[in-house]
């Protein structure tokens, strides 16, 4: 296996806007806000940036195609810039471009920016998929939405592990309730209110068995990161954050085409996790990881991710959830900033928002929600549906 990029790349600056229904800001405003914060954080000037990667998903409804809207908005002076798109994992995809550029030696400093202006689509939830999955899929694909695609994970999981809808929904409600609590400690989060398990369980159903509070916020926002070669990071700041592993796994289609997959988990999450742990030299994730920001687009996604990342054994996540293992004061706090659930989910920005939180935590700058001495943080960014997905898993540390 290739040696990977462990300890080759460091993050020296990050920026993230407040997420939410930002009726008075457009995508350009959000990019400028996130970028200025990151420049200030890194202590560099715009001219120091050698290359840029730009992650956004619904191009037709916000920024258009290509990286033009990034370079024109930020007035980046004729640098190589590339737009990337990998559904909801687009943010981490842009980060990967920047990291690989720096690790290869092609440039010294690179920018990764993600943005989405979902609230100009006119939809509650994500826009309709239309031909997004290709024109043949228009004719043959089930009339699926994001919550429905993930809800199938729940019906299959409940069936396999013998959970009644009540038992299953209670565990899922614990996940959402925990994230709502964390959101109250997160000033830039979209949703900042405590919600009880009972209220979550009794909320209107969006896609059976998922109710309103099993679904993440639909938000506007931008987040970005500035990376440089790890050996030069201390020239910019005393507390850089190092990339320990960065892997993306994209399905071959076997989940939908072959009966081997049981529908209760996300195969690329498992595969990307294995690859990232190997790259980072982590052999026991449950013991070695300090905290996680996972792609909790829906509560059931978070549950299955615990198992796919080998934190909880298969079928046993419910036990860990109910024991508070992933709560803010648990062994591996998860979604410390509220996650997609409460911080919000502007598609292209989410992967970078997760990195923003891990960076702040590893620097001890996470305010009221700061964890005690975290060493290794994990982000998990998922695009698509459980039955066909793009998943990235990244690992970060605060020492070389």
């Amino acid at each position, binding site marked *: 296996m290739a040696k990977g990029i462990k300890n080759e790349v460091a993050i020296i600056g990050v920026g993230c806007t407040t997420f939410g229904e930002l009726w008075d800001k457009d995508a350009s405003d959000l990019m400028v806000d996130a970028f200025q914060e990151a420049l200030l954080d890194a202590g560099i000037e715009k001219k120091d940036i050698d290359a840029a990667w730009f992650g956004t998903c619904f191009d037709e409804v916000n920024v258009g195609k290509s990286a033009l809207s990034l370079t024109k908005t930020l007035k980046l002076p004729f640098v190589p810039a590339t737009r990337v798109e990998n559904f909801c994992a687009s943010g981490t995809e842009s980060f990967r471009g920047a990291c690989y550029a720096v690790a290869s030696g092609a440039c010294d400093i690179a920018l990764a920016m993600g943005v989405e202006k979902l609230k100009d689509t*006119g*939809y*509650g*939830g994500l826009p*309709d998929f*239309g*031909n997004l999955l290709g*024109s*043949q899929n*228009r*004719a*043959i*694909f*089930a*009339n*699926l*939405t*994001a*919550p*429905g695609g993930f*809800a*199938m*994970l*729940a*019906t*299959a999981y409940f*069936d396999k592990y013998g959970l009644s809808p009540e038992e299953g929904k209670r565990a899922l409600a614990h996940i959402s309730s925990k994230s709502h609590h964390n959101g109250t400690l997160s000033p830039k989060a979209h949703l900042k209110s405590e919600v009880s398990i009972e209220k979550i369980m009794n909320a*209107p*159903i*969006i*896609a*059976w068995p*998922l109710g309103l509070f099993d679904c993440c916020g639909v938000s506007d926002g931008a987040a970005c990161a500035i990376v440089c070669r790890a050996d030069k990071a201390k020239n910019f700041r005393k507390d850089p954050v190092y990339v320990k592993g960065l892997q993306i796994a994209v399905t*071959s*289609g*076997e989940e*939908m*085409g*072959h*009966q*081997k997959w*049981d*529908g209760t988990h996300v195969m690329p999450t498992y595969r990307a996790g294995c690859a990232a742990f190997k790259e980072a030299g982590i052999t026991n994730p449950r013991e070695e990881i300090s905290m996680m920001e996972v792609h909790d687009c829906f509560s059931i996604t978070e549950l299955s991710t615990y198992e796919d990342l080998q934190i909880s054994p298969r079928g046993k996540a419910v036990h860990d959830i109910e024991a508070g293992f992933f709560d803010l004061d648990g062994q591996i706090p998860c979604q410390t900033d509220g996650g997609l659930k409460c911080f919000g989910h502007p598609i292209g920005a989410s992967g970078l928002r997760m990195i923003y939180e891990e960076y702040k935590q590893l620097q001890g700058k996470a305010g009221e929600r700061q964890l005690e001495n975290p060493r290794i943080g994990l982000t998990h960014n998922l695009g698509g549906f459980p*039955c066909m997905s793009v998943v990235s898993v990244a690992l970060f540390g605060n020492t070389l």
Partner: protein
Amino acid sequence: MVGITSYGAYIPWYRMNRAIIFEQLGWFNPANASVARGEKAVANYDEDGITMAVAAALDCLGKESREAVGGLYLASTSLPFAQRQNAVIVSQGLDLPSAVRTADFGGSTRAGTSALLSALDAAEGGVTMVCASENRLAKPGSSQEHTYGDGAAAFLTGHENILAQFKGSFSVSTDFIDFRRTQEEKFCHGWEERWIRDEGYSRIISEAVAGLLDRYNLKISDFAKIILACPVAGAMKGLIRAIGATPEQMQDTMMAQVGDTGAALPLMMLAAALEEAKAGDKILVVSYGSGSDALWFEVTDKIQSAQKTSRKGVSGHLTERNDLSVYGKYLVFRNLIPLEVGIRGEEVSPTAMSALGRDGTAISALVGSRCRACGTPQYPKQRICVNPDCGAVDNMEDYRFSDKVGTLAAYTGDNLAFSWDPPQIYGLVDFEDGGRILLDLTDCSLDSVKVKMPVTMSFRRKYADPQRGYYGYFWKAVPVK
């Protein structure tokens, strides 16, 4: 010797008590009290004349060879397309060979028997599938809104393995303008009902029956079963008297359970009669519309084995029913009121006709591929085997999923997706002989759906694109009842 070699039928799952219609609009037209009895079969929102014809044809085909079918005729007055042949959509849905003769028969409720006669006339030459299917729109508040019902029947005709021998026919054609509709119109115009009853049904059907008896030197008492496609109860009573039949000879019109299925009515009644017929029975079939066709058959001893096969037929479909108790739902299913469908209902992305053409039967007949190396069936067709342990390249053969049974590996009922009948239920279907497809479900309620539940495939209208004049058809999963 030529005749019918197989039969099948389809009646949609939804049944509406006619009192529900009368409750809503009886205040406007109190005379409808006389027809506000019994129930009628109502096509689901994703059904039409084409989809019901496919369902009846599949019921008729059973294990019969599709390769042997040389023609498909589709009769109806309510087919979705004015141009783009409806029959060929049915034929392709059934995965019949492309070297097949197809034609639409329409314009009159007599079209069902006209199609059957055309097939029988050609039966020495080979096997023809005849479908009659009806899904007629009636104006809210009209008596037809009460009497019209939806359903379909299908027959195979040929010269081998005949279960009902075709003995002869007599046709009357007359421009009797009881109901009329131009190309531009959605609803029919009718003349006075008493005139239609007396001068239409009563006089014209009697004339056709008399003509047939005379031509073949028969007596009405020769027939074990008499099928008069006369949905008007008042006319029927007089007709039985006029032709000299006894009530025991008369085949039920199913007006109390299904309703007036127009061009499909005589053929659905014939299918029901064959389900109970005995060898040697003579059956008279008389249609109505712009005249009348009278046909007679003699049942052979092949009927016994045919009755033992697993088709649902009319009797099977009559027992599978679900109440449609909300009148508003009926109006929505038939697109009779503008509904606030929201942004998800308004957005329809264009369909690439060239892609459909290229895909051939992949979409229309749910034909995927099976890997010759490892045997894995897969959908849609792949050039590189999806089995991670195989990966063979360009070693596939066509594989039809539409006649396979599957079970649900996962499902949901989605309230966010736009559906004419929310929640939109869909799930991952694992086929018993391998292969997996994510499919919409229909004809079921969410609380009845469970993981591992068995499902069969049903040809349905998947989406409508009114702006571009297009209906997209595909297969959905229906829980085994």
